[in-house]
């Protein structure tokens, strides 16, 4: 698969529009889904996906065809999504250095109270979607890349332009933040109580 993509990217780089169209066809659903998971809005995801592929086309000349294609494309998508969220919410996340794991590290995207209608989760799926929407995009993206896109740490590190150790730390914090959000809303039982009682 990678070889095919690399070959298509190489041809697209040489201004072969048909190869470019094949790349778009190959990745369109994955990129739209990825963007939806980051933005939480279908229309935004579709519009942004178009921007992703246009930026891809304009930057193909910088693509090193000896490297794997998908992390490079996801990096473009990630940057576009973060720019979009930044514009939308005026929040800066990804490039900020993170402190040690504390209450601030798993902060919510905003301090607005949860609307009543989303409090009652129908199932884990909707609970997760609601919780993900409230998660810091930095954490959201690392969770999506790891568990939804099933990327390796190496590829996630390439997408996020971070060392692998940072990716692992961030993933751990993201998972913990999500778990705490679900506990906060009463979906999960607080297993941390055990810690307060003294872990073995």
């Amino acid at each position: 698969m990678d070889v095919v993509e690399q070959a298509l990217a190489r041809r697209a780089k040489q201004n072969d529009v048909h190869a470019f169209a094949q790349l778009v066809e190959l990745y369109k659903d994955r990129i739209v889904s990825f963007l939806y998971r980051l933005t939480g809005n279908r229309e935004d995801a579709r519009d942004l996906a178009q921007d992703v592929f246009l930026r891809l086309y304009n930057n193909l000349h910088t693509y090193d065809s000896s490297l794997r294609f998908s992390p490079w494309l996801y990096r473009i998508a990630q940057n576009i999504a973060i720019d979009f969220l930044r514009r939308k919410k005026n929040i800066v996340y990804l490039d900020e250095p993170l402190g040690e794991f504390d209450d601030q590290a798993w902060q919510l995207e905003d301090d607005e109270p949860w609307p009543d209608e989303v409090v009652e989760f129908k199932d884990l799926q909707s609970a997760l979607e609601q919780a993900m929407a409230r998660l810091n995009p930095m954490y959201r993206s690392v969770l999506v890349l790891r568990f939804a896109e099933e990327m390796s740490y190496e590829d996630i590190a390439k997408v996020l332009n971070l060392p692998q150790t940072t990716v692992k730390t961030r993933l751990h914090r993201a998972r913990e933040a999500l778990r705490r959000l679900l506990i906060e809303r009463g979906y999960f039982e607080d297993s941390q109580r055990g810690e307060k009682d003294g872990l073995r």
Partner: protein
Amino acid sequence: MDCARYRQLICADDLAPDEEQRRQMDKHEAECLSCANYGTQIRQIEKGICSLAVVKAPDDFVSEVLDCLPSWQMLRTVWSRWRVAGVAVALLLFFGFPTYMLVQYPKPFVASLDAGARIEVLGQTVIVPEDVVVNGDITVYHASLQVLGRVRGNVFLVSSGYSIGQQGKVDGRIVLKEHSPWDKVVYGFRNISQEVRAYLGGAWR
């Protein structure tokens, strides 16, 4: 196994625990309700993210993206696709036609051991005039030979025709020979190289 080790292992999704670790984790889960809950929650989260909603791109997504490409880039693409063919055709026309002409209609020439004989070449015709006597053989290439005078030897006609006037006479044999296509090509390129050398010589002067 303590709680810290258990939680470290349950979160390390890149490192599958070995059989012994797995056994110890199961044992710890059975003993520690808090960690059992924690493990279940982590697994549920990971599984849940795995099956988050998939959104498909619209059917006309690819064409919409292609429509958004700047038109000059599309032209550049068309140009890149056809430029190789275009250059090939131009080269073929530029060099092919003269080459074809030179191969099909090579320059006529005549070879004779009689350096003093006045043999005339007019266009594609080689003429031995009425008052001229050629002592020895002559060979005519790519021309029509008109013998109006006398040839005291054999006449070799290579890809050539001939006619003998009322006063004309050939003492020896007349031998006709046709060039093979390959010979024609060789002659053609020999002519080209002669032309080029002549042109360059003239240009340098």
